[in-house]
């Protein structure tokens, strides 16, 4: 299922609606990369609130998309990682590197100052 992406000021916001396959995650990464060029966005927000699993593949893809965005002049904030998901990610040894995170959209927008 394709993730809907909204433009909000200088930001693009991807709001994940359901569990994503690997292919869906690649699509999201590519869509975001394309749209932030089109809109000249300075910020990317990915809302993962509904995800009940962030496995190694999902984490790596999110990290990659944030890195790609940074190379294209935009900062990324990952929003809404659930506490149980965060716990499992730590058990698995997963890290988001220097990608910013926040608990909700409001805080993400404040972080990006857009």
């Amino acid at each position: 299922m394709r993730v809907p992406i909204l433009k909000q000021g200088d930001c693009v916001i991807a709001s994940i609606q359901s569990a994503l396959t690997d292919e869906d995650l690649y699509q999201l990464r590519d869509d975001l990369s394309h749209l932030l060029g089109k809109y000249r966005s300075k910020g990317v927000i990915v809302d993962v609130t509904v995800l009940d699993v962030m496995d190694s593949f999902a984490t790596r893809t999110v990290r990659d998309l944030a890195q790609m965005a940074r190379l294209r002049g935009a900062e990324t904030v990952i929003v809404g990682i659930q506490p149980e998901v965060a716990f499992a990610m730590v058990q698995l040894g997963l890290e988001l590197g220097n990608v910013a995170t926040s608990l909700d959209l409001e805080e993400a927008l404040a972080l990006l100052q857009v």
Partner: protein
Amino acid sequence: MNRDDLDHAVRAIRIASDVDIVEARTAVRSLASEVGFAGTDLVMIATAVSEIARNIVEYAKRGQVICSVVQTTSHRGLEIVARDEGPGIADVSQAMQDGYSSASGLGLGLPGSRRMMDEFLVDTKPGRGTTITMRKWLP
């Protein structure tokens, strides 16, 4: 589902593509929830299944994940068996180390899944496939 039915509940998921990975973790998660797992345990079980199922797609192309309820005299839990007839793992102790990956992965799948489950067994022979058996017991 009543308790007797649950004792014999089995879910089998054929794994052949990335879509099946989502299918497998959803099916296992739902059975785990019926058995009584909740919160963090549910997420860890689903995440371990995701990692193991992805290994099948990545290395063996196809295989299956079978999930069933296990019951001892004192404990109840969930057993997940992931089986494939792929290339097998040449060096299991190496594959169980954090950061080791022979493909494009992060190399956290096997060791990470072991940390999230209570029991974790790998049965593999080069050229003969891999069977991973993981169990998690209800607290």
